[in-house]
Each structure stands twice: as structure tokens, then as C-alpha cells.
């Protein structure tokens, strides 16, 4: 472990340095290269983006719940063009749906989730002074911020933001004649995405390199906490799949702006037969989903890693089946690359190819089931402390199971024919991404808040936040399964044009009400977050009696993380309630007692 010693040496240098020169405000808070500060920057940007995305969803849920009714609040926020007299405009509706999805998937659950927790936890949990490259890390954040700003700005351009759904399928997204949102808004969407992907790659490379090279002495791969494994595999998925989205986006930009025809063929629109032949709109879908499906796990795996850590700590029990948990993360990561075609069963894809994707997709159910069972067994015979983070993690397991099971239906091509692109799909992926992954993120924030800000979040507000969010989340997304099975397509502005759907539509106002309450209760969380940052109770060094390395660093952040040498690791991260010890937790830095059994 020459590396670790080397960094330890480096550090004493750094440390002395830090004492002599106070950092300027700008280099500390703005152009910081410290991973802890960058993590906070990611988190706060993601919270701002999340608030925007949730507000957009409430705007379109108002229209869906009470179609055709006028809401002054819409006019208040959206103005006369998008909500004349408080009635949501049809183009605006599609723009909101699109930007809501884009922000949630990419900015909150990819940039926000990985960016926050990979940055905060990787150096702290593997025992490193900082990321492998602090400079690239800083660039990663700044690219993320630029892309966020462009994405939000796209809401304000002439014609509105991109409106073809977050999957931006061409030709709709390629032809400015096809809809107003395919004009400037779409160009900005693509440019924003290119910055976003750059951010994601810079971050991802850094995470992978740091985990491989900068582990402290004794931190073998098999002693890594599961958060590290999850973030490691996530970063690899991102590095391998995001470049494909760049290609897809650049080709689309060319089709839009330079008259190429990668995705276009035989199109007559707005009275003109376009000079395009030989392209294939389906090609875009293959490229998009080659990223798009790993992306689902880029969103989910960090949440699973976080919850493993939280559940083990708060059950005061080792995570059950550590090796199986690592194995399933790896299996899910691998399989996620060969299942993208299940998004395309009804595109006219060769049915045999469809069969292959049915097979690979359903295989994912196996590692997923192993994870779910292992979570429950970890809780079994534990001594559970219900911290807000623990509640969110238990909520995560429930939603992971519920949402995962409906995935079985969608994976089955013969069944997908009838539920493809209906609300059933919306229900499925919101329960796994909108609930599971968000719960993982919220749980992580409650759990590591003391590490980030040196203060505690308010527990009581956390309880209220969790229970209302859980009830509202299920209240919104569970009934959507039935709306979808009854044949209601997604991305419809108004369902009252179809009499055969009337009998399920009484669910829509209920769903919207839950959405509004669920959205409103997030104010509680945001208040708790910012208020505790300043006025919360001062945290102790290891508030949750946890084993992992990050809790051995001082509460007040310092450059280089540990004031002295980086501690050496002697055991795995899950020695909770080990019968060979008096205490119910044994931090990784505690040496093995003579004759003690290692795990």
C-alpha cells in the first residue's frame, strides 16, 4: 500500500500549508477543490433543481386532476402565455412533463445523488485526503452548474422548453416544424446535456480512480462499505454509457442544424417533403437507451448503497450477505448494459431480438430479489433505531420491491404490447426512481448531514417528512397502475376525450391531491435542511455509532480530512453487535483482538 503512505506524506505537507494561508472566500466556497465542499455544492444545486421539477409536476397534475379548470396559481407562476387565465397551455403541458423528467432523472438523481454522495463519501470512506484530482472534480461541478442553468433557462425561450418527453425521440425533437418546443428549447436541451455528460464523465473517472488507487492501508476491496461498491459500479456504468448519449445528442444536433439525416427519412411536414432519406428514427432509440437503461441503475445503485449502510447501522447488525450484496451490484451493473431493447418492443424491432431482451431483462429480477431479501434479513433480529434516515431506507426497500415487481410485467414483451407507454409505465418507474432513489437520497442527507455541516437535522420534522412523503408517494403512484392498465396513455393533456377511460378517471383528482400534499411537505424538509445548517444542534463526531471511516474525521471540516496520518483499516465495515466485543459497534480502525475472527 505504497500509495496510502505516499498520500499520508503529502498530507503533512498540505496540512502545514493550510495553517499558514487562510483560504480566500472564493476558493473556499466558490472554486473549491475540496471534495466536501463540492459535494455540498452538488447537493444544493440538486435541491434547487428538485424544487423546480416538483413544482412543474404539480402544475401539470393540476391540469390532469381537474382538466380544463382554471387555476390562478398557474397564471401566477407561468404567466399569460403558458397559462392564460390559469388554464395550462397544451404546449406548456408537454414542456413541463419533459423538463420535469429531464431534471429529475439527470439533475437530481444522477448529478445530485452521485455528485453529492460520491464526492462526500468516497475519500472519507476509503481513507483518502481528497479525490484523485481535485481540479477535475471542481470542473465536474462547474459543468453541472452550467448545464443546470442552461436547462432552466430553456424554460424561458420563445416557443418554450423541449417538449418531446425526456427521451426526446426524433423526428419530433429533430424538426422545429413539428412543435414549438422543438425549436430553441430543444437546442438548449441538447447543449445542456452535453455539459451534463462532461460533468458526469469528469466526476465518474475521478470516482473510479479514487476508489481503485487511493484506499488507505488495510482497505481492501472486500472491506469497502457497500456505499463504495455501489458508487464504484455506478461510476463505471456512467463512464461506459454516457459517451453514447453524447454521440446520440451530437448526431441529433446535426440533424437539426446541419441538414444531415441520421435519424430522418421520408418525412413530409408542414407542407414540405424534406430532403432526407435513409436515416432511421429507431437508431436514436437504440443509442439513447444504451445509455438510458444503465442510467436507471446509475440512479438506483447509489440509493441502494446508501440504504445498505443506513439499515445496517441502525439495525445494529452487519449487513446480511455482504458478498451477495456486492455480487448483485456487479450483476445488476453488468446486466444493465444488455437490456436496453426492452424499451423498444413495439418499435417494430425484430421479434427474436425482442425475445433476447426479455430474457436478459428478467434475469435482473434475480440479483434484485437477493438484495430485497438481504435487506429484510438485515432488519430481522436487529435492534432498530428509527432515525429519519432509517425510515427512508425502510421506505426504499418497500418501494424497491413494489416497483421492481411491476417491472416483471413490463419486461415481458407479450404483456408490454398492451401497457407500453401507458400510466402503468409511469407508475412503475416513479415507484423505483421517484420513490426508491429519492428515498435513498433523502435518507443519505439525513444520515450524513452531521458529516456535511457539523450539525444535526431536526428528527421530529424528519418523521413528519417521511410519513407524509411515503403516504403521498404511494398515493400518487400506486393508483396509476390501474389507470394505465385501463388503457390510459402517458403524456396526454386531457383524458376526457375518451369515454372508455371515464370510469378510472375519478382517480386523477385523488392522485393530484396526493401530489400537491406530497410536494408541499417537502417544504418542511427544505426548511429543516437550511435551518439546521445554521441553527441545528452541534453534532458529535460519530452520532450514529457507525463503523465507517468518515466518522473518524473531525466534525469541523479540514483540508485533507484527517488532522494526523490517515487511519489504518483493520476490519470490514459491518462489525455491529459483534459478540466478541463489548460495544455494539467496532469501527474499522480498531485493530483485531488476538484470536478474533475476521469477516
Amino acid at each position, binding site marked *: 500500500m505504497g500509495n496510502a503512505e505516499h498520500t499520508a506524506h503529502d498530507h503533512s505537507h498540505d496540512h502545514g500549508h493550510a495553517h499558514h494561508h487562510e483560504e480566500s472566500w472564493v476558493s473556499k466556497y466558490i472554486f473549491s477543490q475540496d471534495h466536501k465542499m463540492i459535494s455540498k455544492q452538488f447537493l444544493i444545486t440538486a435541491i434547487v433543481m428538485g424544487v423546480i421539477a416538483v413544482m412543474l409536476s404539480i402544475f401539470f397534475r393540476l391540469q390532469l386532476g381537474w382538466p380544463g379548470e382554471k387555476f390562478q396559481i398557474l397564471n401566477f407562476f407561468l404567466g399569460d402565455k403558458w397559462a392564460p387565465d390559469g388554464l395550462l397551455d397544451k404546449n406548456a403541458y408537454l414542456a413541463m412533463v419533459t423538463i420535469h423528467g429531464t431534471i429529475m432523472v439527470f439533475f437530481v438523481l444522477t448529478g445530485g445523488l452521485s455528485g453529492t454522495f460520491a464526492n462526500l463519501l468516497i475519500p472519507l470512506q476509503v481513507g483518502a485526503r481528497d479525490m484523485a484530482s481535485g481540479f477535475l472534480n471542481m470542473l465536474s461541478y462547474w459543468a453541472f452548474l452550467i448545464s443546470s442553468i442552461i436547462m432552466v433557462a430553456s424554460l424561458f425561450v420563445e416557443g418554450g422548453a423541449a417538449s418531446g418527453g425526456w427521451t426526446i425521440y426524433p423526428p419530433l425533437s429533430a424538426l422545429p416544424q413539428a412543435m414549438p418546443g422543438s425549436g430553441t428549447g430543444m437546442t438548449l436541451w441538447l447543449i445542456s446535456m452535453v455539459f451534463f455528460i462532461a460533468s458526469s464523465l469528469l466526476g465518474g473517472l475521478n470516482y473510479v480512480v479514487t476508489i481503485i488507487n487511493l484506499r488507505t492501508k488495510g482497505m481492501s476491496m472486500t472491506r469497502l462499505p457497500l456505499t463504495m461498491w455501489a458508487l464504484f459500479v455506478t461510476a463505471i456504468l456512467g463512464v461506459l454509457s454516457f459517451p453514447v448519449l453524447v454521440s446520440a445528442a451530437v448526431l441529433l444536433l446535426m440533424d437539426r442544424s446541419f441538414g444531415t439525416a441520421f435519424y430522418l427519412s421520408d418525412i413530409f411536414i408542414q407542407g414540405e417533403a424534406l430532403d432526407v432519406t435513409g436515416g432511421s428514427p429507431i437508431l436514436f432509440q437504440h443509442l439513447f437507451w444504451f445509455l438510458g437503461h444503465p442510467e436507471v441503475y446509475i440512479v438506483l445503485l447509489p440509493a441502494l448503497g446508501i440504504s445498505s449502510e443506513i439499515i445496517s447501522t441502525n439495525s445494529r447488525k452487519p449487513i446480511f450477505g455482504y458478498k451477495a450484496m456486492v455480487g448483485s451490484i456487479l450483476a445488476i451493473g453488468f446486466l444493465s448494459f444488455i437490456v436496453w431493447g426492452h424499451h423498444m418492443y413495439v418499435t417494430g424491432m425484430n421479434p427474436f431480438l425482442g425475445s433476447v431482451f426479455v*430474457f436478459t431483462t428478467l434475469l435482473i429480477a434475480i440479483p434484485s430479489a437477493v438484495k430485497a431479501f438481504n435487506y429484510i434479513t438485515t432488519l430481522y433480529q436487529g435492534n432498530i433505531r428509527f432515525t429519519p434516515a432509517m425510515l427512508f431506507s425502510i421506505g426504499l426497500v418497500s418501494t424497491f420491491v413494489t416497483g421492481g*415487481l411491476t417491472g416483471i410485467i413490463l419486461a415481458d414483451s407479450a404483456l408490454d404490447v398492451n401497457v407500453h407507454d401507458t400510466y402503468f409505465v409511469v407508475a412503475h418507474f416513479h415507484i423505483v426512481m421517484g420513490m426508491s432513489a429519492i428515498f435513498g437520497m433523502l435518507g443519505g442527507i439525513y444520515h450524513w448531514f452531521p458529516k456535511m455541516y457539523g450539525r444535526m437535522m431536526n428528527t421530529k420534522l424528519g418523521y413528519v417528512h417521511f410519513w407524509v412523503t411515503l403516504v403521498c408517494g*404511494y398515493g400518487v403512484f400506486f393508483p396509476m397502475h390501474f389507470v394505465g392498465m385501463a388503457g390510459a396513455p402517458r403524456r396526454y393533456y386531457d383524458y376526457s376525450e375518451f369515454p372508455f377511460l371515464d370510469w378510472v378517471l375519478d382517480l386523477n383528482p385523488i392522485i393530484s391531491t396526493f401530489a400537491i400534499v406530497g410536494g408541499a411537505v417537502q417544504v418542511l424538509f427544505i426548511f429543516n435542511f437550511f435551518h439546521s445548517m445554521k441553527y441545528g444542534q452541534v453534532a458529535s463526531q460519530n452520532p*450514529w455509532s457507525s463503523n465507517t471511516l468518515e466518522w473518524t474525521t473531525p466534525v469541523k471540516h479540514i483540508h485533507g480530512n484527517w488532522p494526523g496520518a490517515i487511519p489504518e483499516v483493520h476490519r470490514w465495515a459491518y462489525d455491529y453487535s459483534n459478540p466478541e466485543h463489548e460495544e455494539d459497534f467496532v469501527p474499522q480502525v480498531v485493530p483485531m483482538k488476538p484470536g478474533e475472527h475476521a469477516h
Partner: protein
Amino acid sequence: MKLLIILVIVLAIIAIVQLSKVYEFTRTLRKSKEEEISPADNKLNANLMLVWMSVFFIGTLYLYARYGEYLPEPASEHGKDVDWLMGINIWMITVMFFIMNAMLFLVAWKYQYKKDRKARFFAHDNRLEMVWTLIPGVAMAFIIVFGLITWNKITGPASEGAMQIELYSKQFAWIARYPGQDGQFGAANYNLISTKNEMGIVSKELIAAKMEELDSEIEGLKAQLEENKKLPVMPESYVETLEDKIFRLERHKQRILDLGEYKTANGMSNWVTGSDDQVVKSELHLPVGKEIEFVFRSQDVIHSAYMPHFRAQMNTVPGVPTRFKMTPTITTKEMRGKLADDKFDYVLLCNKVCGNAHFNMQMKIVVETEEEYLAWLEKQKSFGGEPAQEAAPAEGTDAPADTTMKAAMPAAQASAKMTH
């Protein structure tokens, strides 16, 4: 109104601030730490797990009872297989849903924090883990096998005698084409699309008409440019726009000249077989009990032909024809009887976002007996040699150029919805 909203938000925030201050004050008085979860709180949350579980399960059962019959019985042959498979799958995942969630919430409740208990150090058990790798493995094998059997049935090639109907999508309407007496569709090409020939059907006359149209357009533009040469009033950029337009129109002509003529199965030219095709914009009529192979084409963007009552769906992709076969089994009349609803109609929806009127791009489907169907078909005009009059029904005069510009329901929908 705006003031009121702001006032409510401000008041809510003040209320939360005050509440949390009171809470923190009491906390300091009791000298308790935020991370120490009091026994009362632990118990409360553990009990809430049970309360939530009951609410969740009762709610789920209610939804199953009230909305579980998600669609009327399938009106197509393969639909029965799909529903059977769906039934098995739903049954399996529902059982797993209840077991797993119940286990989770019960375990969480039962093993709530007790001061005198120590958690059991239980790190792994290979046998247990093997069991829950194998169980989903076997379940998946079952699901995959039955799923693929059904999938192959649905997507296998259509039988020899299957009749073909073309479904054509455009923003924001469906058009159906029946092959006519000869059973062969005429060639179609997007370069020939005009307001009078919305599907771009090919015939010598239509080619000539289109060429003429393009020629006159080019001439018009050239004349404008000539005028400008004599008296330059146009800005440079506009001149370029016009020149570019002429260039593109010339290319358009070239693409038409490149169209190939082929012999179809019955020895006729595919430029001729289109003349008896029947183009229908109002309703899609299908004979009951006959296998139908739909051929899907799209004019502009990707749409998706979704017929939930028949458990059928296929995307329509510009430039890439797609197919889906099915056999309707229940006529509209029979279905109305079964549902005791005189107004019931089968419907074809668009299920791929395609623009602002996506939500209303629909076509009524009428399934009827073969006699009724043939009688209806006979009344449909054939495309004929004189497309100008015959192909454009009175209500279908909407110019494609203005469909997206209208914020309200475009004329295209109005025509699609209009019964004859």
C-alpha cells in the same frame, strides 16, 4: 389572489419556524441529543409501520376490487393469450408484493429498539441466500418461457390469407387504406404527398401533377428573383432563402424522377394498383373473425397505433414500415351488449407523444360481420385516376401546413372524429 398565496406561504413558514423553535427549546431543557431516539419515538414509528401496512394493504385490495377489471374482455384472438398471461403474472407479483411488504413492515415493527436486547450478529447464511436466489430464478424461468410462447404467437408471420389494411399516421390524425379489388396496395411515396393525396400514393397522373406543381412553384420563385434583379428590393438573406428553396424543389423533383416502378404479385404495376385503393379518414372498419395484418406508415413523426381493447400496439415510424397482425373476435354490437353500453366504441389512440394535440389523435374502430363490412367497403370511394376529386372527402380539406399552428383542436381531429 397573488397576495393571498404569498401570505399563506409566509405564514406557513413562520409557523414551522416557531414550532421547531419550541421543539428545540424543550430538547435543550431535557438535554437530549438529536441522534438519541427516545423510546417513545421508536415505539411510535414502529407502530406507524403497522398502521401504514394495514392502510397500504387495505388500499391495495380496494383498488384491485374497484379497478381490477382494467379493460373489457379482449376483442381479439391473441388478446385472450395476453390476458391469460397477464392474469398469471399479476397474480404472482401480487402475492410477492404482499409477502415482501408484510415481512418488511412486520420485521421493522417487531425488532424495534429495546434497551436490554442486543442485535444478533448474523452476517450471512449461504443456504438461505441460495434459496432466495433459486426461487426468483425458477419463477423467472417460468415467466420467460410462457412470455416468449405468447410473444412468438403474437409476432409470428401473418397467415397466407390474411387481409391487409394500411394505417397511416400524421399530426394529428389516422388514415386507413384498404387495398381494393386487386388486394394490392399501390406504391406510396412521401414525395408525392399533397393536400389531395395525403398518403402519397403513386400513379403516373399523380407524378405528373406533382411535377407540375413543383415546376410552377419553381417558376414563381424564379420570376420573383428576376424581378429583383431588375429592381433590387429584397434583402440579400431573402434572396438566399429563395435560391435555397429553388434548390430544394429541384432536389424534390429529382427524387420523384428516381421513383421505381415494380410488378406486384398479380403482375400489375405498383403504380397502377393504387387506383382502386380505398382511403378512409373517418372510421376504421374491420370484419370480425378475419385475420388482419396492419401495415403502419407515418408521415411526419413517430406515432403509436394503440388499440387497448384488442391488446394491440405498434409504433408507426417515418421511413420504416411496421406490421402487426390480429383477428378481431367481438363485433362492436356484441361488445355493446356485453357492456350494456349503447355508446361504446372501440378506439385507436396515438400512444407516442407527437405534438400538442397528441392527446386527441384518435379514430373510431367498428368491428362488424363480414356482410356488413363488405357492404360498407363497397360504399367507400376508390382512389381512382382522378384523385383531385375522389381522394379528398369534403371534410378533409385541412392543409397539413397549419396543423401544429393551431392551439385548439386542429381540423384534422375534427374530421377524424366525425362519423360519416
